[in-house]
Structures are given as structure tokens and as C-alpha cells.
């Protein structure tokens, strides 16, 4: 029957033959699948994946091929693995240490280190942090990173052991500030309080370059009266509450840096250049409490690699049939308490994160797969005493065509600077995961790479992991991070 004839038959409402109905059904299925491919519906796709999952038992007849390949690859060096674990431990300890205030700002204050877990309920200007202890913590206490003011505690969840911090970038956040006079005038200024302002929220003006950090907003400057009255409104700002009695915690934040006030173009555009990347560069912070509470110093939590929340995993499919993807299939799944995004490690090395997780099966997206986004920090193997530097978020770009090793894009943000190194110098770094994502512990090694010093004008840098194994996981046992009950609760609360 011709196509027009079939259409006519369909429209006439006459009963169709069984073959005709089947044909119509199959065509409808094809168009439905095309529609779902072009306009993805994740829940429906997950349901379909579950329906097809019994076929994995058929697929697993091929697992001897993986074992055969695993025997062929034998790059595992136990000594190197132990060294990597030691370096990872040191990296996490240094990260916490580097977030503590310097000695001149630490006196009279007790600093409780805390790791940033995630944005609170997806809000950009609130972060969830896990402090080493909740003892002595109270609402309103300031949160800092080294000498830089970050925000204040607005919520404490004693059951989950986490606190919520409102960041300086929040629209309604305000903190008192004063403009520091130039060094040459400080002695002359004496008790002159200088220029008073409030800082908080993000400035509306344009950024210096595409991808650069947004400026903070400064409000309501009150001119100085003395020798500083004629100074331009420009220079470093520090926290200073002019009415400290209104806030019992304000004295704890006194003297912490806010950024640099830039020369104003108009009255409505007072911008402060931030000292931190509040969106992607906030990994570890310190909560300041009064020192006279009589509390013992907080104890460091266990390193993520040392706790019990790891599930051993075996690979049953060693590769991805489609060559532009990089995935593995594991014999563990949702039944083992795993969920999407869990970290997969070999020793202290992160080899990837879980993609789709089904009962009894999970897929690992390796670092060589494009589109994986990770918070990253850089340690300096040539100078182990130098504290690691937070780099922010990196996105995997797939495998480098020449070497087969994973390539990453670093968007930048704050300039990567090393004393004595001119701009553009390549610096050898070991890249580790940072904090900021629930289920992804900090301090997992990604690999070594070279980062160029200096600002990148917003274009970012492309890095290649020079020592990453192109075929990870075949030669040593894999472990998957299982979220604890508190992490699961937090994950459920995330949008």
C-alpha cells in the first residue's frame, strides 16, 4: 500500500491490519526516541536504564577480557602508591593550616578550621562548612580565610555537624570597613579613624575581563575629617565596626582584609577588588570564636582516605565502546550505598567519579572523559613546605590526542603567582581535589602538571596531567567513596 493510502486508511478510522499497527507503533517508537535524544528527560532515561539493566548479566560474560587486559598492564608500584598517600595527607593538613589567620590576627581569637562542603541549598552566597568541632560556635561569628574576611555563621546544624556561612557577596550582607591610608601617612594620621564604609554584595559594574572575579560592592563612604580628608577613595580595606556594641562578634573580625577599593567612576559604582574567589576558590576557612571560652583546641578529623566509608570495587568492563568517551563499569552499585558523583580512587589517586548508578552496576567517568568538573588545588612537589594554592574549578577536556593523557581547562580567577617567577613561567604542580562538593573528598591526587604564572586575561589555561595513567584501574584495586548518612542527608537537601 502506498504511503498516501496508508494515511487515508488511518484517517478514515477503518480497522488496520496487525502488521499495519505494528509498523505504526514502531515508527512512533522511533520518533519518540529521537525526541528523547534531542530533548533529554533524565528521569525517564533512568527508568529505561533500569529496565535494560538485567542485560548486564549477559554483558558480564565478557569480563575475562578485562582480566586479560589487567594482566597485560602492570605499572603498579606499591612504593609510589605509599608516597602518594603520604603526600595526600600532607596536602590536606597544609590546606587546613593555610586557612588559619596569621599570628598578628590570631591573638585573642580561637580559630576553628572548617572544610567547605557545598553551596547551601544551591544558593551562591551561602556555603555549608564542616568545622572540626561545633564547641564554642555561635551565630554571627566571623569566618575568615587566612587574613581575608569571608562572611559570618548564620546557621548551625548540630545533628549533621555542619554550619552555614553567609558570604560577603550576599546581596544584603554588610560589614563595617575602613580605608587604610597609605603607609607614608599612617604615622601622621595618628588616631584619625579615616574613611568609614560598609562592604557587602557584588558590584553591578562590568568586570575587568571575561572570566575575571566579580567585584564586591562598597557603600556609604563617610569622609575623614583630618589629614586624610583629601585622600582619594582608593586603597586596601579592612574590617572595622564603628559601633561594636551592636554586634558582640564584631570585634573578632576587626582588622581582617576585605579587598582593595578601586577608584570610583561614579557615585553608584564603588567597587572592591576581592582577595578570594568566593565562587570557586573557597575550600577551607576558619571560624573565629572568643579565646576565653576555656575550650581545648579542636582536633583534626581523619583524613578521608583513612576513614571507613570506602567500598572495594572490581571492574567488569575495561573500556567504552564509543572512543570519544572514557568510562569503566564496576560491579558495585546503588545497593552498596553509592550514588552519582561518588569519587573512585586507586590508592590516593582519583581516577574518576560515578556516572549512572544502578543496582549492582555503576559507571565510572574517568578523568580522560570530557565535561567532568572538579574543585582543584595545587601543591608544589619541588617545594613541599610551600602551602598548596587553591586554583578553583577545572573541567576535563578529554584525552590529549598525542599523549592520551587527560587534559583540563582551568578558568583561572585569581592570578597564579609564585615569588620570583615572572609571568608566563611554567611551574610544576601536583593537582589535588579541593573541597566544595559533597561526596568528593579533598586531597585526592589527580596528577602532575605545569601551570603558567600570571593572570590569564580571562581565557583560562589548558593543562595536561603528565603522569596520569592512560588506562587507570586495571593494575590495582579500586575503591569508591560511599557517602555517610550525614552526607546523604545533605545531598538530599541540595537542589
Amino acid at each position, binding site marked *: 500500500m502506498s504511503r498516501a493510502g496508508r494515511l487515508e486508511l488511518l484517517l478514515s478510522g477503518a480497522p488496520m491490519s496487525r502488521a499495519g499497527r*505494528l*509498523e505504526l507503533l*514502531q515508527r512512533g*517508537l*522511533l520518533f519518540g*526516541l*529521537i525526541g*528523547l*535524544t*534531542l530533548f*533529554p528527560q533524565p528521569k*525517564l*532515561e533512568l527508568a*529505561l*536504564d533500569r529496565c*535494560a*539493566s538485567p*542485560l*548486564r548479566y*549477559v*554483558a558480564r*560474560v*565478557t569480563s575475562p*577480557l*578485562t582480566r586479560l*587486559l589487567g594482566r597485560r598492564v602492570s605499572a603498579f608500584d606499591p612504593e609510589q602508591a605509599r608516597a602518594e598517600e603520604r603526600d595526600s595527607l600532607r596536602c590536606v593538613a597544609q590546606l587546613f593550616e593555610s586557612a588559619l589567620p596569621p599570628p598578628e590576627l590570631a591573638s585573642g581569637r580561637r580559630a576553628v578550621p572548617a572544610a567547605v562542603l557545598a553551596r547551601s541549598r544551591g544558593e551562591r552566597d551561602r556555603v555549608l562548612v564542616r568545622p572540626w568541632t561545633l564547641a564554642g560556635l555561635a551565630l554571627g561569628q566571623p569566618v575568615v580565610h587566612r587574613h581575608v574576611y569571608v562572611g559570618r555563621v548564620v546557621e548551625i546544624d548540630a545533628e549533621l555537624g555542619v554550619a552555614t556561612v553567609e558570604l560577603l557577596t550576599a546581596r544584603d550582607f554588610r560589614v563595617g570597613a575602613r580605608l587604610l591610608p597609605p603607609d607614608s601617612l599612617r604615622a601622621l594620621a595618628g588616631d584619625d579613624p579615616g574613611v568609614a564604609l560598609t562592604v557587602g554584595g557584588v558590584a553591578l559594574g562590568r568586570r575587568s575581563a571575561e572570566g575575571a572575579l566579580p567585584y564586591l560592592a562598597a557603600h556609604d563612604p563617610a569622609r575623614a575629617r583630618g589629614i586624610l580628608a583629601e585622600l582619594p577613595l582608593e586603597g586596601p580595606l579592612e574590617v572595622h565596626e564603628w559601633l561594636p556594641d551592636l554586634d558582640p562578634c564584631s570585634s573578632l573580625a576587626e582588622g581582617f582584609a576585605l579587598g582593595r577599593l578601586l577608584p570610583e567612576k561614579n557615585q553608584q559604582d564603588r567597587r572592591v577588588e576581592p582577595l578570594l574567589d568566593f565562587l570557586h576558590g573557597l575550600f577551607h576557612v576558619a571560624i573565629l570564636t572568643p579565646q576565653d571560652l576555656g575550650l581545648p583546641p579542636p582536633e583534626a578529623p581523619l583524613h578521608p582516605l583513612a576513614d571507613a566509608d570506602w567500598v572495594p570495587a572490581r571492574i567488569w*568492563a*575495561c*573500556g*567504552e*565502546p*564509543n*572512543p*570519544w*568517551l572514557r*568510562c569503566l*563499569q564496576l560491579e558495585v552499585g546503588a545497593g552498596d550505598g553509592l550514588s552519582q558523583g561518588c569519587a573512585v580512587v586507586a590508592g590516593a589517586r582519583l581516577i574518576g567519579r560515578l*556516572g*549512572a548508578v544502578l543496582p549492582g*552496576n555503576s*559507571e565510572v*567517568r574517568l578523568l580522560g*572523559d*570530557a*565535561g567532568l568538573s572538579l574543585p582543584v588545588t595545587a601543591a608544589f612537589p619541588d617545594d613541599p613546605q610551600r602551602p598548596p594554592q587553591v586554583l578553583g574549578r577545572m*573541567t576535563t*577536556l*578529554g*584525552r*590529549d*590526542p*598525542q*599523549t*592520551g593523557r587527560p*587534559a583540563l*581547562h582551568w578558568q583561572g580567577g585569581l592570578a597564579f603567582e609564585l615569588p620570583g617567577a615572572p609571568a608566563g613561567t611554567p611551574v610544576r604542580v601536583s593537582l589535588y581535589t579541593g573541597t566544595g562538593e559533597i561526596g568528593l573528598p579533598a586531597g585526592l591526587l589527580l596528577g602532575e602538571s605545569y601551570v603558567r604564572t600570571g593572570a590569564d586575561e580571562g581565557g*583560562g589555561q589548558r593543562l595536561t596531567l603528565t603522569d596520569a595513567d*592512560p*588506562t587507570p584501574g586495571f593494575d590495582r584495586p579500586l575503591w569508591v567513596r560511599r557517602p555517610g548518612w550525614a552526607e546523604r542527608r545533605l545531598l538530599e537537601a541540595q537542589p
Partner: protein
Amino acid sequence: MTGRWFGWLALCFWSAWAFALEGALGAGAHGARVWPDLPLLILLSLALVVPRSRARGAALVLAALEAQFSAVPLVALAAGYLLAVGASEALRPWLSPEAAMARGLAVALISLLLEAWLRLALLRRTPLPFEPARDPYDGVLFTAVSSGLCAALLLPLARSLPGLSLLWRPTGGESWAAAARVR
């Protein structure tokens, strides 16, 4: 009917090995893929001799099986293989056992379409904000050419893999005349 079920099982078995082999080759490779799309060759080889609805069934089985190995979504795989079966119907005169060159060209074209479709599906899901290390369509042509070459030489043999003949050879309740008609 039992024989047909064994045929489907054989299709799953051979396709699973084809997918696993592709995965193993891909795991160690750095550059573009140069090996043929083996499961597609099995599917096209079958599509030439089985009824249309059974060929579409085979496409869905292959998609469901590949989804066990791959991060490509099942819906994209199913649509891709169904489109490949549709294309093989349209190009059936070219796929005849006598014309090796035309058969190779037709399979290369179908492979090209399938690869492009799957990559389009992936880009729809994870649009990359930055330029990836390799072009998303890199290697599509290599795969198409190697699949075409392989099809020119071996396509009719793919359906002779042990057990697959149960899907296309007449079993108990089917006449030779019916089998000849679909061939």
C-alpha cells in the same frame, strides 16, 4: 520458537563480545578509532535477511546491550540503531552480496550517520563550555571507512556466527517460501 530464543541469546552473546572488544581497544588507544563498528556490522548483516520487525528488535537489543557498556544514553543508542536499520532498508539494493564496493560504501554511510548521531546526542547532554582536547566529531570518518572496508569483505559472513542463523533460517512453523520472501 525455542530456536528463535536461542538466536536472540546468540545475538546478545556475540554483540556483548563485540562491544567489550571495542571497549578494550578504545581503553588503550590515544588517537582516533580505526577499527570497524563490529556490532553495527552484525546488525546490518542480519537486517538484510530477517523481517523488518525482527531487524528493529535486533536494533533495540543491541542498544540495550551497548548501554551496559557505555555512557551513551539508551534512548540515543536505540534511536541510532533503528535509524541504521531504516537506512539499510533504503539502501538495500546497494547491500547485495554481489556488489562488494557498493556494500562497503553503503555501510560506511550508515556508520557515518550513526556515529554523528551519537555524538550529537552526547553534545546535547553535556555541552562543553570550553574547547575539548579533541574535536567531538574526530575519528567519525575513520570508523566509517574501516566499517565500510570490513563490510565489503565480511558483511555476509557476520550473520554466520554460531547461533545467529537461528534468527534468520526458517524454524519449525515457518515456510521456506516466507524465508525466501524476506531475503
